[in-house]
């Protein structure tokens, strides 16, 4: 028995009984022993999920699928994806001798934490969803993140599950020579476009620097690309979504039909990566449909609250994610109000300049009546919209006040919240929601 581990586990169960989650137990463990995470005897299947967007949804889908096959799975389902969150997850699910009691661990992991913990976690799978501009001040340039992940996967012999339609992700296949490369890709469909105006990181071939040719774009720089010079991007996908109808809400892969609960292109990519993991484990793909059909991370992902009129809460944290949420919002019919909560705490990133890379001009529409700018950087948000020519702006820094304002308008509303405001906003909405 290990005293330090016992202490961490006791702290966890006390906090749990008091109805409090959080990563404090893991923080304690790492404080007492910086090699805490490496001490655990990991289960036979360890799946790490990283990338800029879609980590939480993807990791939860994988975990749910594995559970539906009867495996005992642990996962950090709320997206506590830093060292301390992962340490908490492992400690809470192991015996007093560091043996993790599960058949499989599915761990969402922050892009920078991958570099630090990859070897300690001894993964069998690394799933990489996509790489977009994110919190640049915390993470440094995206280039640095990619290079660091290349470094730790150089001698990785497990399954490297890669988004084959993201040039920034596919680069990892070039350097991970020993890994089993499992790419996933999605066919051209009704929303695919020949050109794009969205913040684009993958313009050039990582091998030769020449511009990449795109056959089609799905969103941002995700799409079917090829370097004519050296054939970077020429893939034989391990999982290929062969047909897709987002309007009717189904897609087809290896002749099975799936019905995802969210009919958006980024969600289809999440599903594709899940199928790649299942296939690598020799599991029957068809069974995943029951999970795709029903399972959804509710918290702040299109979560609906009944105020005087419906209020839909969404998380935004970088240009690509914000663009996708805005596409959804502007396609909803009828008059509506919008509230954008912009914070700049540590986990949001101190640099809010990313709002200038997102297409907020899309909110310049007749049926959007008012836009409430809220949060620690409410005025920065207001300026972003002002300089797009919008003049239906209201600045209310306090979240509670902003929600009250929306409620009083008796109009459908959409709240777009940055990460550190999400929890508080949910709390208020849950309290204010009418029966």
């Amino acid at each position, binding site marked *: 028995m290990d005293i330090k581990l016992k202490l961490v586990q006791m702290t966890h169960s006390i906090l749990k009984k008091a109805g409090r989650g959080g990563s404090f137990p893991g923080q304690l463990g790492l404080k007492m022993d910086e090699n805490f995470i490496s001490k655990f005897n990991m289960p036979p299947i360890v799946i790490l999920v990283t990338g800029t967007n879609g980590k939480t949804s993807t990791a939860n889908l994988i975990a749910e699928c594995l559970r539906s096959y009867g495996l005992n799975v642990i996962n950090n389902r709320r997206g506590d994806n830093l060292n301390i969150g992962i340490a908490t997850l492992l400690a809470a699910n192991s015996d007093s001798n560091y043996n993790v009691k599960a058949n499989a661990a599915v761990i969402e992991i922050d892009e920078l934490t991958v570099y630090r913990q990859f070897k300690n976690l001894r993964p069998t799978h690394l799933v990489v969803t996509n790489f977009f501009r994110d919190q*640049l001040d915390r993470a440094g340039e*995206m280039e640095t993140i990619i290079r660091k992940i290349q470094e730790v996967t150089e001698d990785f012999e497990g399954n490297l599950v890669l988004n084959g339609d993201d040039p920034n992700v596919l680069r990892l296949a070039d350097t991970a020579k020993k890994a089993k490369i499992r790419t996933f890709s999605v066919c051209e469909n009704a929303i695919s476009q020949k050109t794009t105006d969205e913040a684009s990181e993958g313009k050039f071939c990582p091998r030769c620097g020449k511009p990449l040719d795109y056959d089609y774009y799905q969103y941002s720089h995700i799409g079917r690309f090829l370097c004519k010079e050296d054939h970077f991007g020429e893939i034989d996908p391990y999982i290929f979504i062969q047909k897709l109808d987002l309007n009717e809400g189904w897609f087809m892969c290896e002749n099975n039909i799936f019905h995802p609960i969210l009919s958006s292109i980024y969600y289809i990519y999440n599903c594709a990566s899940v199928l790649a993991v299942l296939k690598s484990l020799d599991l029957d793909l068809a069974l995943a449909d029951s999970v795709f059909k029903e399972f959804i991370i509710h918290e702040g992902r299109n979560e609906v609250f009944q105020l005087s009129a419906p209020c839909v809460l969404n998380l935004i944290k970088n240009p690509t994610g914000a663009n996708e949420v805005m596409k959804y919002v502007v396609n909803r019919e009828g008059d509506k109000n919008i509230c954008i909560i912009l914070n700049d705490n540590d986990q949001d990133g101190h640099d809010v300049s990313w709002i200038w890379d997102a297409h907020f001009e899309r909110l310049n529409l007749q049926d959007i009546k008012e836009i409430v700018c809220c949060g620690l950087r409410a*005025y920065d948000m207001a300026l972003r919209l002002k300089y*797009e020519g919008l003049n239906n702006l209201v600045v209310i820094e306090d979240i509670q006040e902003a929600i009250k304002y929306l409620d009083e308008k008796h109009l459908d509303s959409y709240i777009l919240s940055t990460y550190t405001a999400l929890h508080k906003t949910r709390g208020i909405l849950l309290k204010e929601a009418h029966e």
Partner: protein
Amino acid sequence: MNIKVLWMYHDLMDLYGDKGNIEVLKYRCNKRGIDCVVDTCGIGEEKDITQYDLFFLGGGADKEQNMIFGDLIKRKDSIKQAMDEHTAFLLICGGYQLFGKYYKDQDGNIIEGLGFFDYYTEASDRNHRCIGNIAIEATIDQDTFSVVGFENHGGQTKNVLSPFGKVLSGHGNMYQSEFEGFLNDTVLATYMHGPLLPKNPKVADKIIQRALRKRYGDITLEPLDDSLENKAHEIMYKRIVK
């Protein structure tokens, strides 16, 4: 009345929302009935730089910066001519560095700059990257005011003879240094992102006046309603300047 803006390498040097500066210039010109014509110039594209009133170059990641550099050097003579003919320059971060003598990277390799000014930049070690909110006190064309922004640079720029401003909070040209940026009669070069202009309408108007000066001489701009701008500025200023 109009100003012609040349936005250099807009598709490559557009880190940290620097394109927001262009939005602000357009808006503030249009509100005053000044036509703001923005033209872009990519690698290998033929553009007569001397024909423009304002030259704008933003920041880029290392990779992008290396890509544009060869092209920029080829344009050295016409940039010099534009500068002599009083084109205004707004240079952010990477753009700032490239106008100096040289940039020395972490391995000691020296990349020659355009060499218009005496300053030079050396890569910092990991612990001395300058990241965070910043406030300075600047004097542009005889007017003194505070400027707020966000800096994120590894490069340490030394030997700046006429800085843009005095650091009130943050790092500036070097880790924990006293001064930020470079300024002369036509060139404003700075590490400040944010982007720079939305929260600093006074700087934006100075840039517009400088651009106008080339063809119209000194023009007084009519004031605009800057209450949102001033509030955003004030909130950040109060937060970081003790």
